[in-house]
């Protein structure tokens, strides 16, 4: 991968990638693996990008696809993953990925959600319009609207129960 491509096409969007990868991983090691794989996939698929959407949307799409695929593979291998019911109540050292305590709590709560709900809320929090979220996730804007309301309620409930 040329450093030019990395500097111009990946690094400015590293925030997006980090936010998504953090939501699907529980350790620094996994996070770094996911991040690397996303970068690799972006590089691999660069020729398939035909300006049909913004580059940032492309990056979101690839990041989510990579995370969901990785997660599926790990689940199949029987590695990690706790279901939302058995997620630890406390934020572990590994989960303290950010300096901001509330953000760590929000991430811990997001990890209680299903994989798709996580994707929806991440895109919503990134202020992507419902139409674009629907486009990325292959559903309808109405469905996203309803889902976001439900997810927000659930997140508030989790944060209140676990951390307040």
């Amino acid at each position, binding site marked *: *991968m*040329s*450093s030019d*491509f*990395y500097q111009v096409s990946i*690094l400015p969007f*590293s*925030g997006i990638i*980090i*936010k998504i990868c953090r939501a699907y991983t529980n350790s620094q090691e996994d*996070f*770094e*693996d996911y*991040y*690397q794989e996303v*970068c*690799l996939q972006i*590089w*691999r698929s660069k020729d398939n990008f035909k300006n049909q959407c913004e580059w940032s949307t492309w990056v979101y799409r690839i990041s989510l696809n990579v995370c969901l695929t990785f997660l599926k593979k790990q689940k199949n291998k029987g590695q990690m993953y706790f279901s939302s019911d058995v997620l630890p109540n406390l934020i572990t050292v590994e989960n303290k990925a*950010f*300096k*901001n305590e*509330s*953000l760590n*709590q*929000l991430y811990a709560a997001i990890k209680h959600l299903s994989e798709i709900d996580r994707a929806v*809320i991440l895109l919503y*929090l990134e202020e992507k319009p419902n139409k674009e979220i629907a486009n990325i996730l292959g559903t309808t804007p109405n469905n996203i609207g309803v889902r976001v309301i439900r997810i*927000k309620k659930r*997140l*508030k409930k989790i*944060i*209140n129960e676990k951390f*307040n």
Partner: protein
Amino acid sequence: MKNSIETIWKEGFLNEKSLVVPKINDLYSQKSKHLVDKIKRMFKINIITIILVALLLPVIYYLIDAIWQGIGISILLLCTAWYSKKQMKSIKALNQGATSYDYLISFDQWLKNALLKNENVLRFSYPLYFLIVMSTILSAWSKQEKLITKFSRKYPDIVFIGDIPLFTLIITVIGTLMMFFFSRKIYRWDVKLVYGRILKKLEETIYEMEKLKEEE
């Protein structure tokens, strides 16, 4: 909960530059390791399967009254398993401390050598397997006296050598020779069937790494 989740998100990421970007210079290390581990695992399963079949075959052959042929095939299979195991041990000699690319290249080279050696061994094993199977069939035939009599009466023109029709002996010889000459093709087809997908993945990964290197 004091703030809405939107506020927590926004405020949390206000100083987004503080997000630490992981290093990506070791891009393929995990990938290479997983790939090689998977191939090793497949080899191991293959060896275990060969040993299990080798243990099971004499029993089956005993039941069909062809114990010696069963033992023959079993010995051949056990030799194959031993040879494969011996080859697998040499993987350890590969330089794991090298870069992912070097490691994959040396593994690929090892794999090609191993397949080539197997081809040479199987050039003699396949005809032997075929001969043993034919001998099982022919010895079962020899025990069917009534059937042989009926057959020789129905086809009086067929030449017999002992109890065996000459044409079956000719088929056996031709079959054995074909096994010898086409052993390489049969083995390659066999390898493709079992390991085809993973070997293609190895090839693709090496190609990608080379492409990455070119762009650096």
